[in-house]
Structures are given as structure tokens and as C-alpha cells.
């Protein structure tokens, strides 16, 4: 079932591209970009949801609510859900598109593994997956040689007798950059998600690096292409923050100025006092600040 719906079509597309471009390395890159393109609506939705959620969590109303019900968790959960409903923000909205992408990524991974068949048994199984309109005798076996790499083996560029894992280094670097610049702005100090993101930014590059160092370089090439494509995709959408790794670039505001939420949801109701923001907390959104006519020096720098 899984193979028929996901892996077999992916494998045939990958083989079809390979047949067209006559190069498996380029086929992996093109296929990765194709998958990114197909899943773009999901990614865009995820970015939009994340942005809205962050904005909501930085709003004075949200903070007021957190402060007000800090000792009543049940009421806090109820009020929070009410606010989410009003704002039409789905708390799972930012992770659902990601969850949908998991089978696609795993399918892509498995199809790359299958195409790099290294034993007769794997070749037999691969040949049986090929759709009749593709001539298996012309496609198989796939040429694993790409640049200096054997895509079926872990990659090392031998310079002066020393094998340098160039691809592994690039995967580690791009995974780290991706984690840094693509991560959404924090919802506040002590934010669990922020802590998790920070921890992930440390461990993910190491984990991906280890996988790239030990497994076939075809997979490392896929990781690299995927990382670069993701960074470009987020950059195009204006949701990257390069100041996190390039100090000479001005930092982005914590909250995106062009709000995706109605202003009324971000404001504190007129009958309620404005809570004093704690020093460690991020400043409120620009829009909310304007509405409340707060002093200019308290506005977030743009």
C-alpha cells in the first residue's frame, strides 16, 4: 500500500528524471526541488499559521490573559482556546502541514535508497517497481557517479591523501543555517517552543551530519538540496532572519508588521488595564502599540 501509493510513483519519477538528464546526482536535486514545489502550498500555509500564532502570542491581550489566569490553568486553557477561535488560528495549524510532509519526505528518502540498488536482490525489486512505459533495460543500473562522488557510498573528497567529507560539512552547515534563520521568532521568554528550537538547532546539524557521514552520499546530496531549497523558499517569503547568523544585518522585528489578524484581537479591551511588560518579555506588536498610543520610545525598533 505504502509502496504503491508513495514509493513506487516517486521511484518512477526519479528514474524518469534520471533517464532524461542522464545523471542521477542532478536527478536527485531536480526531484527534491520538484517535491518542494509540490508541497509549497503546505509550507506556505504552515508559515502563515506560525506567523499568526506568534503575532497573537505577542499581543497585549494574550499577555494580559496569561497574567490574569496564571493560577487557573483550566480557565487559562479555556480563554486561550476562545481567543484562538476568534482569531481563527489553529494551534495545530503550524504543525499539521509539516506532519503531512513527513510521508512525502520518507517516500523520497526510500525511493532514493531503492534507486541506488547495490545488490542483485535490490535490483530485482527495483526492476519490478518500474512502470511498463519506462524501459528498465535502458535505465538500470543507475550511474551512481556524480562529480567526485559515488552516490552509493559515503562521500570523501581525497586531497593530499586525506578524505574530506565535503558533503557532510555542507549538510551540517546548511542544516544549522536553516535552523537559525528559518526558526520563527520566539513568543516570549521561557517559551517552551523557543527552548526546543534552540536545542534542535544544536542537535539537528550533528544528527544530519552523522547520517551524511555514514550513509550513501546520494542521501547527503538530497539533504543538501532540501536544506538549500528550504532556505531559499523562506527567504523568498520574507520569513528568514539572517541577523541571527550575520551580525552586521539589522535584526528583524519580533512581530511581523503586516498583521494577519484583526486588530481587535490584538488589543486589550478598553475596560481592562494594560499590563506592564516584564523586562525579559518581547515588546508588544507595532500595531497594538500604535492603537494604545504608547510612548514612541516603547515601540519596537524597525
Amino acid at each position: 500500500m505504502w509502496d504503491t501509493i508513495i514509493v513506487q510513483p516517486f521511484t518512477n519519477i526519479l528514474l524518469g528524471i534520471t533517464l532524461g538528464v542522464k545523471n542521477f546526482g542532478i536527478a536527485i536535486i531536480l526531484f527534491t526541488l520538484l517535491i518542494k514545489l509540490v508541497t509549497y502550498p503546505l509550507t506556505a500555509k504552515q508559515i502563515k499559521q506560525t506567523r499568526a500564532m506568534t503575532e497573537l502570542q505577542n499581543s497585549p491581550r494574550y499577555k494580559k490573559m496569561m497574567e490574569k489566569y496564571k493560577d487557573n490553568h483550566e480557565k487559562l486553557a479555556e480563554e486561550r482556546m476562545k481567543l484562538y477561535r476568534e482569531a481563527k488560528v489553529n494551534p495545530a495549524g503550524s504543525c499539521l502541514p509539516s506532519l503531512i510532509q513527513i510521508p512525502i519526505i520518507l517516500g523520497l528518502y526510500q525511493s532514493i535508497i531503492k534507486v541506488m540498488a547495490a545488490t542483485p536482490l535490490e535490483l530485482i525489486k527495483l526492476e519490478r517497481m518500474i512502470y511498463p512505459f519506462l524501459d528498465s533495460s535502458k535505465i538500470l543500473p543507475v550511474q551512481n557517479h556524480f562529480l567526485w562522488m559515488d552516490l552509493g557510498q559515503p562521500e570523501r573528497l581525497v586531497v593530499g591523501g586525506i578524505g574530506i567529507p565535503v558533503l557532510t560539512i555542507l549538510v551540517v552547515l546548511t542544516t544549522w543555517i536553516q535552523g537559525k534563520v528559518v526558526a520563527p521568532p520566539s513568543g516570549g521568554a521561557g517559551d517552551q517552543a523557543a527552548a526546543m528550537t534552540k536545542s534542535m538547532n544544536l542537535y539537528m546539524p550533528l544528527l544530519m551530519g552523522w547520517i551524511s557521514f555514514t550513509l550513501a552520499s546520494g542521501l547527503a546530496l538530497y539533504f543538501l538540496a532540501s536544506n538549500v531549497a528550504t532556505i531559499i523558499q523562506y527567504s523568498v517569503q520574507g520569513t528568514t532572519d539572517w541577523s541571527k547568523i550575520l551580525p552586521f544585518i539589522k535584526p528583524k522585528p519580533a512581530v511581523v508588521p503586516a498583521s494577519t489578524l484583526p486588530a481587535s484581537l490584538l488589543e486589550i479591551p478598553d475596560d481592562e488595564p494594560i499590563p506592564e511588560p516584564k523586562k525579559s518579555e518581547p515588546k508588544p506588536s507595532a500595531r497594538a502599540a500604535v492603537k494604545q498610543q504608547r510612548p514612541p520610545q516603547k515601540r519596537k525598533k524597525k
Partner: protein
Amino acid sequence: MLALTALVLGGCAMGPRADGTPGVSADESAAYVSYQQFVYKIDAAAGTEVWRYPQSASAQVIFYAPPTIADGKVYVGDFANRFQSLSSENGIVDWIFSEAKGWFEAKAATDGTYIIAPNLDRNVYCLNVDGSLAWTYSSEFGFMAEPVIIEDVVYISSMDHHLVALDIATGDVLWKTKLNGALVSAPYYDAERGALFVGSMGKVLTAVDSQSGEILWAFNNNGELSSVWATPVMFDGNIVFTDESGKIFGLNPDDGSVNWALDAGGNVTAGILPLESSFVVVREDGTLTVYNMSDRAPVWTRTVDGEVYSTPVLAGDKIFIGVKGNVLLQAYDLNGNLVWSFTPGK
């Protein structure tokens, strides 16, 4: 999402990733099986383990290439890019060749002076019997087939669609003939005609002159043949082979015309094993059938406990079958009685 995906992928990062089948060799006293983390020597009479190599498992070391047994040695390559010579008596390492950059999937061949070890790194390594490198032959693709040594010539099937003849002493190319599709099995050499017969993933069986490399004829059953995964055999005046779909053909070796055809009733990737007056066919699903050579009538049928992808081996009065399933190796007598099954202990 990335974390979950990475964890799933990371689970695979502990060793070589490959799915293979047991590689079986045998002589009258023992069977040798390469499978996953060990090479086993199994007593042919009792079906018990004599030794295993290495003594403890390593995630990095995987064996699928059938061992080559010669002159009291066991020559076998692994997926840690190493080729080793072991004592057939006790499995102790004699030497290890570790200059290859890829996996050893194919069975090696030896003439007693040289050892020809094909590798997936697109090289064929010719070693001296002391493990030193004599020469290498490079191609555009890796090698999965056992070489054939006839006098001073090595014939080797290449995944780059070529059948190649090399001088065994120097590695010089004597001739190189492009065929249709990747060649994943060894050619059969017919001394009487001086011809080689080899099947391919290009869905054709080709006869090639062993002196010149000239193609003598090619058979594709009018475009109906499927891939041929195993080496053909010669008996009863026919060149006999199966295609993947289970069609068994007996061809006239002089012109490739069909003398007879038979249907095994299921996929067959293992080669045919000729006996004295009969021949053995094993389907992938483990159905083992012995047919009469004269009229191709089935003599007996047994079901092996698992899938079978590799050619059965005859040694002494036993047929050894490598099984991908609940057991690793089964031994049958020539009347179809199961003599023993071997399952490795922990």
C-alpha cells in the same frame, strides 16, 4: 518534523544498508554461506556449524558474496570494502585486502595463481594469492557477477552492458563487446564451440565467440523474454536458462533456435542446476522442482522454508539451497529428501 524524520533516517545510519541473499558454496565435506554479519562453515553430513567468521558481529561488516573455496582457503569479500582470505579449516584470517572503495557483492574466481575479485566501486581487482594487488580493471559501473577463468583469460560480465575478456596476467583488455542491458550473472563457457552464453537485464540471451568477442546470435523470444538473472547451463545438447517470469528454455547452442520451453509457474531468478539425468529449478517462492532431462516431466517437488534467489549448489550427493527465510540453508538428497536445515545460533 525534521527531528522525527531525522530519527527515522538516523536509525539506518548504523551500518551498510543493503538487502541481499545468502551466498552459498560447497565441497563434499562442507557448505559455506555468507549472510549478513557472518560467513559460516557448515558440516555437510550433520548440518552443524563448524566455524563462523568473524567471531563476533559488527554492524559495519556484512557478507552477501558467495565464498570461493580453493586450496584450503576461503576467499570472500564484504560490505566494509574488504576482501579476505581465511583458512577453510578454522576460519582464521590469512590476509585482508582493503584497498577497494566499494562493496564486494560478487563471488571471486581463482586459478590458483590469481584471485579475481569484482567490486561495486567499478573495479575488478586481481590479487596474488598472498593478497597483494596484481592489477585492476576499471569500468563505468560496478560488477555483480562472478568472473570466469578459462586458461589465461578472464571473462567478466559488467553492469555497463559489456562482456569483457582480460589477460589474467596483465589485466589487458583482449576484447570488449557491448550487449543489450546490464550483465548481472557470469557467462557460461562452452569449450566445444569456444562460445560464451550470457543473459542480461536487457531481456536477451546472447552467444559470443570467446576468441574474438563477436556476437554469434541473440535470443529474446520475439520480445517476450524478461530479465535473465542467472548463468545458463548446458546439458543434453541444449543451452538451458530461465528468465525472471519463470519461462525455461532449451536452445540450440549453434543458432539460438528453441528446442523446448517449459513454464516453472512462478518467478525464477536462481539458475538451473543440472544433475545426472535431471535438472533442478527453484522458484523465488521456494518451490523446488526436479525435472527429467529427457521429457522435462517433473520428478519431485518440495517447498523450501523461505524465498530463494540464488542458484542451488550440488556437492557430493547433496543439493544445498540458500534460503531467505526462517532457515539459512537446506540440504536435500538427490531423491528430494530433506537431509537437514541450518539456522544460525546466536
